[in-house]
């Protein structure tokens, strides 16, 4: 079939439309395959999330049942652990956590408390370092490539404890997985060994010496970080799956519209040529 030659009109020429159609079809293939990959990773992550949730709930049970709260009057030092990942194209995952962290920092600094942030995931660092760079204590990279393990959580907790920042309490901010299409940004509390020891309900617990409590608290910290990592990874994969699915759907819509435009343009060109031929013949 003949392509329109050199004629620049307001509507695109056949060649432009063909190029655009080809590139959008490629994009659709890519987003479809990304959706498949995200779906398989999501299935695996959700399976591993079930035991991790029981484990994390067990670790948090003490805080809930003993109703441990940090003393309000002291100028407490806070730590915030924000958990996301390195990779994008997953919807609002990273920005939700960054928003929660920013509002939390604003609340705490207006109340006169000191707060430091640990970023798990490069995306979070990018979102926070420009405006809240002075609060960032630690950055973790290479998050999200492989499913999170207990070793990763213990690495993060070890770095926090070795950093020398004597925090009294804090929170882990992450995206809790609710279903394939929904997640919610939540926070879980983190306490230091001293805060727990001085909490009023702790006298109920028998036979605890400082060493045991410190060990216990460190282990609880790792458990909470592990739960946050697992939930966050599952939410991220499901969000990436839905966003790539939407992208593929949008691409097919554009392909349909462009195909129609292409056919109309092609018919218009043929009609024009016919008219030229006929009017030329009629002139004879």
């Amino acid at each position, binding site marked *: 079939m003949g392509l329109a030659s050199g004629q620049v009109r307001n509507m695109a020429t056949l060649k432009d439309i063909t190029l655009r159609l080809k590139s959008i079809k490629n994009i659709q293939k890519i987003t479809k395959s990304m959706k498949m990959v995200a779906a398989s990773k999501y299935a695996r992550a959700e399976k*591993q999330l*079930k*035991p*991790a949730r*029981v*484990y994390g*709930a*067990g*670790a948090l*049970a*003490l805080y809930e*049942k*003993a109703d441990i709260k940090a003393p309000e009057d002291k100028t407490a030092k806070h730590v915030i652990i924000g958990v996301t990942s390195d990779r994008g194209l997953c919807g609002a995952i990273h920005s939700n956590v960054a928003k929660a962290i920013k509002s939390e920092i604003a609340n705490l600094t207006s109340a006169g408390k000191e707060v430091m942030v640990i970023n798990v995931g490069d995306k979070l660092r990018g979102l926070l370092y420009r405006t809240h760079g002075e609060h960032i204590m630690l950055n973790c990279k290479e998050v999200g490539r492989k499913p999170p*393990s*207990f070793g990763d959580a213990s690495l993060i907790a070890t770095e926090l404890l070795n950093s020398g920042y004597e925090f009294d309490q804090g929170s882990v901010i992450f995206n809790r997985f609710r279903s394939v299409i929904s997640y919610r940004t939540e926070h879980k509390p983190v306490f230091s060994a001293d805060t727990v020891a001085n909490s009023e309900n702790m006298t*109920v*617990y*028998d*036979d*605890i010496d400082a060493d*045991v*409590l410190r*060990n*216990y608290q460190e*282990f*609880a910290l790792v*458990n909470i970080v*592990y739960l946050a990592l697992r939930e966050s990874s599952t939410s991220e994969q499901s969000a990436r799956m839905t966003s790539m699915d939407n992208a593929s759907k949008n691409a097919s819509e554009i392909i349909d519209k462009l195909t129609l435009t292409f056919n109309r343009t092609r018919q218009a060109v043929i009609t024009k040529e016919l008219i030229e031929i006929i009017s030329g013949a009629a002139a004879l």
Partner: protein
Amino acid sequence: MMAARFLRCALPVLRHARSYAEAASVPTQMSFTFASPTQVFFKEASVRQVDVPTLTGAFGILPAHVPTLQVLRPGVVTIFNDDGSSAKYFVSSGSVTVNTDSSVQLLAEEAVPLDQLDITLFCKSARKTAELGDTGCTRLLHQCKKIGEDLSQQQTSMSILLEPLSVF
């Protein structure tokens, strides 16, 4: 007439009847959760007794145990079910929490049922680690040699091997 008077005398006694005080509301069942990061073994189950090895010594937890927090030491955890059967697991480390409402959370960093441990591999790696100078393994090595060659009794041997760990 006598009956009516008798009844009238009896009534006040009934109104001021005395009884023993009620027993303190102690939960008779423990809600036992035992999990590792990758696997859940018990979730809010009702069991009779749990023996745990901790840094400060091994002790058994029954329902209505006094609330406590402990850190685990490598050893064998034994769980006695309500029907009398028992299950043994080897744990590497972790924590145990007993709350006031008699719920017990046993969180192990690594836990494996004893019957999944292969005694030959175990003795082999214990020997290797002892050669590298780890004195803790030499004790295990003696146990290995004692039970050693008769590997047909794998399951019982494993628990016999590891029991001494909980009773330091």
